[in-house]
């Protein structure tokens, strides 16, 4: 009888303490989320993508380790030029650790640069593919590269490197000077790195509006006036273009022969 009493008392303690600790745990959980120690609830579809073991491991406290292992698999797929697999792996990796900047950057780089080069450049492995299909794939992978960085910005809105990389894509892969300029500007505002401001100005020079040229001129002239170390070939080249376009008086122009 005494034994039963103890068992009942033990159960009562577990249940009562369980009910009492729930609000405490919910509060702590909220704080952990605020401090970015929770990466959000995964959809049930992730179980299918990760497989049973991967899912159990990822949510048994080994989420970061699973992401690293998938990263290695993605590296192997990249070495074999299996771009669909690279994409699939990084989509999962980025969902597992969305606050890991490097994963978004790598995913975008693989898509917008490596996969695009694979289909764009002459390559024996893609000789059999029709040019129209290759062009379509190139366009898709550029979009995918942009999409990774845009998704990354949802989780890390203050990340200057994502804006820088988006600007690079709009400069080199999908030319769009106003958009490239916009992202360089944001990257500069977030990081205060001088070369990003210069890149912003270079893209403004490519735009068609005179007010953008004026802004570019002011930026590049300011950099030029900082001294010889800041007078790179690109700064001098664009300043000379802008002096002509904006009809800058000869006396105010930079020295000839530079």
């Amino acid at each position, binding site marked *: 009888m005494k034994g039963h009493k103890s*068992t009942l008392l033990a159960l009562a303690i*577990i249940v009562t303490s369980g009910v009492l600790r729930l609000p405490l745990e919910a509060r702590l959980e909220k*704080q952990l989320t605020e401090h970015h*120690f929770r990466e959000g*609830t995964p959809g049930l579809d992730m179980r299918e993508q990760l497989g049973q073991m991967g899912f159990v491991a990822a949510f048994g406290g080994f989420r*970061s380790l699973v992401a690293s292992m998938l990263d290695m698999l993605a590296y192997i797929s990249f070495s074999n030029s299996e771009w669909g697999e690279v994409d699939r792996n990084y989509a999962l990796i980025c969902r597992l650790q969305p606050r890991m900047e490097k994963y978004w950057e790598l995913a975008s780089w693989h898509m917008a640069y490596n996969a695009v080069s694979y289909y764009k450049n002459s390559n024996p492995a893609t000789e059999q593919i029709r040019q129209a299909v290759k062009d379509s794939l190139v366009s898709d992978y550029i979009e995918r590269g942009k999409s990774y960085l845009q998704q990354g910005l949802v989780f890390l809105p203050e990340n200057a490197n994502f804006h820088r990389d988006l600007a690079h894509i709009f400069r080199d892969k999908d030319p769009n000077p106003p958009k490239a300029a916009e992202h360089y500007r944001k990257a500069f505002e977030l990081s205060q790195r001088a070369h990003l401001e210069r890149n912003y100005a270079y893209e403004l020079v490519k735009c068609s509006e005179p007010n953008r040229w004026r802004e570019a001129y002011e930026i590049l002239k300011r950099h030029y006036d900082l001294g010889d170390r800041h007078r790179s070939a690109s700064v001098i080249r664009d300043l000379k273009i802008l002096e002509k376009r904006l009809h800058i008086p000869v006396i105010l122009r930079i020295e000839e022969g530079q």
Partner: protein
Amino acid sequence: MEAHASTGNTYHALSPARIWVLATSTLTQLVRMKVFYFLIIFIALLFGAGFLFISLSFEQELKLLKDIAFGAMSLFSLIFAIVGTAILIPKDVEDRTLYTILSKPVPRREYLAGKLLGVLLLVGISLLAMDVIFTAILYLRQNIILTNQLGILDAKEIATPENIENVTAIIKNQGVRWELQAAVFSIFLKAAVLASICMLLSTFATSTMFTIIVGFAIFFIGHGQSLAREYFLQGTFSSPVEKLITVFLAILFPDLQLFNLTDGVVSGEPVPIELLLKITAIAALYLVIYNVVAILIFSEKEL
């Protein structure tokens, strides 16, 4: 609270000294099972992770090293906590040591507390040893990478103060930081909670295997619990049975995800002291609850 024995010596109803003696003898008992050989596997894993995957970027390399180290620490501490605790009482019964101890003026609560403390000492010492090895290898790798990267900047003639500062900051953020120790501490707290649950289980379990299997099941339930709660709050579960099961799980089992700081730390998140203290307090609460229940059950157990 104290009583006087017939010898005239003071008898304490709860003696930290007796608990300590039991804890150290438990630790000796576990160490004699040659458990520390796992460190060889740990070192091999870390050297493999730190020096074999050099084709990855340095950030990936350092992250992989940390992930493998934390993964191994979690796994080893989990095994020590569950298996170490599960074998203790049955082994003492089998060796008849339990009867020898309890025939002396040692209350059962002290016996349980001593045994649990012994397992926690083992987990703590193992984690400390792994932490020292991990920190040393990470520091070494971090410095090698930093020297290489600065060399690359020099070779490319782009070693501007801005670039040097940038590369150094990235490497240091992925290298040795105090937050790594906080993550190791959180692994210890999780193992401590699991050990206390297994101690509770072993007070009424009929076999070691039962305690081990149920211990591992609780480990997975404990991690899935927050997931189930989230689905519950999001309305993913529609049937009343599913909802009831979720509430039942939340009340009965510990939420082990609360002790998971490693993923965030590896991503470079800072750990506020306040948060660490709260996690410690929750772990202490679990330890008290499970120990009180274990003492209640063990006190009435017919041996």
